[in-house]
């Protein structure tokens, strides 16, 4: 079982020192990535999803940020303790990332070919000619028509969806073990979102890549993820496999997220549900459940102490005072 685990994130903490105070953007996050599987990380904007994944790659802008604790074990070896040279061996090679806004994530001054070839040459030791062939092959896989021609163009000559395809092709060009996709469809047209998700799904399956899919909407992860982590204010509040999350959500926040997914089988004219209140300000957060002001089940204890993480069954846990005081 554990042989399948490629990456273990253990109690990861990432803080930012801001003028307003200490921002604990990620505060004790743990999860495992298994070979070829897809993990969804879901939460409202500002909950620390991007920071978690930038920390895995040690890409936190510093100052103001730093990794305040935890381990990121890739095949048992802690990435956070590696030298810069060792980490560069991993970035783009073992773990690659694609980001939210394909319009700004490609360098506007360099041809697609330059940007793709540099990665392949760096990690695969191919010469430029072979690297270009490989790049063209990846673009073709990613569904870009006439890739031999398109590869010599600049990013502005591509539409948003096409640019995200280029990003995917580039990210997968060195056969990474893990692809981190940070809200890959949020900036795209609705019609294109499904195509991009389908592409990630299909390519990762074909290449055997594990995927971390970050999103703020449970609807996006529904069909794609094996496991789901729900994040709130820098912590994972519920972790379970996809069926359990949708079938019997435990945390009130997860229930809220599920209710706010638009559903086709409901034909009421009601407005789409949204969780009342605002996402919390996590600067100088006191010890309490940060969700209590928005929670309909809030008790006194919720205002005084962060709930312990209770294991419910293997691989399933929730951090909420509704489920006992831990065990």
């Amino acid at each position, binding site marked *: 079982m554990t042989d399948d685990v490629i990456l273990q994130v253990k109690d990861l903490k990432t803080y930012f020192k801001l003028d307003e105070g200490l921002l604990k953007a990620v505060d004790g996050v743990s999860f495992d990535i298994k070979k070829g599987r897809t993990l969804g990380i879901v939460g409202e904007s500002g909950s620390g999803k991007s920071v978690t994944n930038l920390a895995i790659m040690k890409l936190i802008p510093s100052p103001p940020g730093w990794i305040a604790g935890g381990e990121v074990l890739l095949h048992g070896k802690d990435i956070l303790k590696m030298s810069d040279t060792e980490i560069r061996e991993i970035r783009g090679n073992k773990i690659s990332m694609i980001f939210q806004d394909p319009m700004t994530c490609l360098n506007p*001054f360099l041809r697609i070919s*330059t940007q793709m070839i*540099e990665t392949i040459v760096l990690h695969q030791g191919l010469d430029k000619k072979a690297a270009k062939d490989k790049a063209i092959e990846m673009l073709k896989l990613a569904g870009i028509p006439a890739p031999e021609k398109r590869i010599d163009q600049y990013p502005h000559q591509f539409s948003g969806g096409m640019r995200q395809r280029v990003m995917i092709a580039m990210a997968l060009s060195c056969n990474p073990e893990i692809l981190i996709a940070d809200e890959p469809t949020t900036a795209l047209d609705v019609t294109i979102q499904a195509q991009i998700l389908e592409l990630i799904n299909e390519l990762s399956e074909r290449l055997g890549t594990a995927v971390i899919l970050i999103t703020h909407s449970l609807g996006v992860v529904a069909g794609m993820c094996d496991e789901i982590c729900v994040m709130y204010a820098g912590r994972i509040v519920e972790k379970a496999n996809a069926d359990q999350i949708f079938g019997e959500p435990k945390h009130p926040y997860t229930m809220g997220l599920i209710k706010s997914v638009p559903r086709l089988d409901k034909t009421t004219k009601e407005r789409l549900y949204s969780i009342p209140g605002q996402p919390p300000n996590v600067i100088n957060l006191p010890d309490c459940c940060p969700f209590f002001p928005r929670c309909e089940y809030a008790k006194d204890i919720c205002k005084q102490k962060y709930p312990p993480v209770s294991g419910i069954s293997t691989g399933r846990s929730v951090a909420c005072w509704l489920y006992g005081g831990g065990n």
Partner: protein
Amino acid sequence: MAKYIIRRLLSLIPTMFIIITLSFFLIRVAPGGPFSGEKGLPEQVQQNLLKKYHMDEPLFRQYLRYFGDVLIGNFGPSLRYKESSVNELIAQGFPNSIILGTVALALATFAGICVGILSALKQNRWQDYSAMSLAVIGISVPLFVIGPVLQLVFAMNLKWLPVSGWIFSRAGLKTLILPALTLAFPYFAYIARLSRASILEVLRSDYVRTARSKGLSEGIVIRRHVLKGALLPIVSYLGPAFAGIITGSIVVESIFFIPGIGKIFVQSALNRDYPLIMGEVIVYSLFLVTMNFLVDVLYGFLDPRIAYK
């Protein structure tokens, strides 16, 4: 691209036409005249002088005559330096000013970019603080202070360089150093600040994060992914900078006794030497619009997002 260049070149014609016309009439509006300063000139002599230079004719007639001369490249005689034509005066002074301005701007650009890069990469460390303090001095201290201070230190005290003079003298190219440094200083300061800010902005950009996430070394990230985008704003600053540096050279030329066009320019304005003023305005403007044009074309080559139609 070729089409764009031709169109831009053609658009220089109306621009120059407007400049010539406006200057011609504006100069005449200013009170005084070329001969009114010379006291004691008998009325009859003044009349004869005006007649000699066709200045007794109606203004519009003079304008047409002048325009015709300009079209064949003749700027007419100087009213003050009676032994030389305007063409000769400009041909003597202008190249010196251009040499000084070009050297100064090249110096400012090169040093400014280098210091800007250093500052940005060492943000908030002593290298950054000292470079930016120097830049504040460069921007706030006027040329007529910087020039004499440099003269005092490097020429009078250290005796490394000549106090004044020009490249055709015995001291040769050495004479170029102090005036070029003086003239370059404020532009160096501005370019250093501009490139620092611009590099810092690009360093935070999404595409640089992508480059890092691919495992590229910091050196390659800077050279390949940061510099080009960050230095583009400098290119577009070079056009206006050239305009400024040419104007600034008037001050520097008089501090260092450089036989440039700056000194004649000031004199000609005070003397109401109409043909000389016009000649200088035309040559300057032609030069500046050409520089701006070249900068635009260069920018287009550097930024792939710009499509010339």
